[in-house]
């Protein structure tokens, strides 16, 4: 039987090289691959292009890799709430491409689905449209957008099995399923790893074919960015 399990995070990220393009799942700090981010920081891999909806916060999430200047370029939709990011952006150290969130999600989905390009109305008439082909469908202008793919996609799931099947929980799902499909090598870290056969096939969100390596994360802090209670 196919077994995608690796024993340790260091084995999962063993071949991530300087200059790699990496997709990181998560929305804010929700559903981010904490263990892989920490291991990449420790390993010191540099000049990374990171595709992630957000850029973490100071001291957590991708903010860790920004602090150590391991990221050369961020491709994101929203990067507020991160002072280190803002500093590096304004000083010109960091290259940033901002993409409307739905376009980002769909470009990643397209990358994983073998669709090289598509048209979307988002961003027409704004600076996002600069240099892009415009085509009118049903009387409405749309922009041509291209797929996004990556050398590595790193996703975080709630449960996974040794065959690489993944189940996400709550709003920690977000970009993770699309990113899992769009990486040349997809690495999944999970809270709970079970033998193949224990997860109900009806409930799988990401089929194991998309996942190259899976491991159980040692520890999840699951930091909350904006704790709000009644």
């Amino acid at each position, binding site marked *: 039987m196919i077994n995608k399990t690796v024993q340790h995070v260091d084995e999962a990220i063993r071949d991530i090289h300087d200059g790699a393009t990496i997709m990181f799942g998560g929305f804010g700090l929700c559903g981010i691959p904490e263990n892989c981010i920490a291991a990449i920081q420790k390993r010191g891999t540099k000049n990374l292009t990171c595709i992630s909806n957000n850029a973490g916060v100071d001291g957590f999430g991708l903010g860790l890799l920004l602090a150590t200047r391991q990221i050369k370029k961020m491709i994101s939709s*929203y990067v507020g709430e991160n002072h280190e990011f803002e500093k590096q952006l304004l000083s010109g150290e960091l290259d940033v491409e901002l993409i409307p969130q739905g376009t980002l999600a769909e470009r990643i989905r397209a990358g994983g689905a073998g669709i090289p390009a598509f048209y979307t109305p988002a961003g027409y008439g704004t600076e996002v449209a600069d240099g892009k082909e415009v085509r009118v469908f049903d009387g409405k202008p749309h922009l041509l957008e291209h797929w996004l793919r990556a050398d590595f996609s790193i996703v975080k799931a709630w449960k996974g099995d040794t065959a690489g099947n993944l189940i996400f929980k709550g709003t*920690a799902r977000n970009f993770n399923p699309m990113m899992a499909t769009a990486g040349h090598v997809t690495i999944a870290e999970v809270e709970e790893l079970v033998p193949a056969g224990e997860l109900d096939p009806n409930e799988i969100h990401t089929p194991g074919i998309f996942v190259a390596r899976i491991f159980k994360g040692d520890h999840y802090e699951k930091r909350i960015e904006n704790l709000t209670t009644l």
Partner: protein
Amino acid sequence: MALDKYGIAKRIAQEVKDGYYVNLGIGIPTLVANYIPSNIQVMLQSENGLLGMGAFPSKDNVDPDMINAGKQTVTTIDGAALFNSADSFAMIRSGKIDLTILGAMEVSEQGDIANWKIPGKMVKGMGGAMDLVASARNIIVAMQHNSKDGQSKLLKACSLPLTGLHCVKKVFSDLGVFDILPEGGFKLLERAPGVSVEEIIQATEGKLIVEGIIPEMIIN
């Protein structure tokens, strides 16, 4: 007197109808959820992948895996659904969301909106705002009428980088309620309590259309 942000949110809540799917932006729009009448049923969409967003959790019921697009911890209501970001924007782009309520830095008399960037000062990103304004059928804006230094934010043309073109249908400011006409112009529909038409004329740089007696808005 001009409305405070809670007053604006209360007035906008009257636009939310039974059975609506609604997306609320960050800021004043988020407050609208607190004033939706309890006798109607509404599904709030949060673009990070939740339809049927509920209230904030109690202290011992916080789940870090349940947040809204403002990264606040939230709960779900009966009938809620969770999904990925691509599905979330599929609902938005295909026009399934009945009402979208956004904040804005500027709105033009043509219905253009700017709310994501101040060149050289603030670059946070557009998040989902560009997708929402490009596709939602009914977009209303909650905003302060003037900037802190007294400049009108209801303009002939936006000076800041745009989020979307010809998309805003209605503006709810601290001074009044305005329709944006298809041919351009802010048509004054209601005044905030105690605010005169004259004050609104003074505060509006864009083309303002005032026809007949303008009623004072009713806020419960």
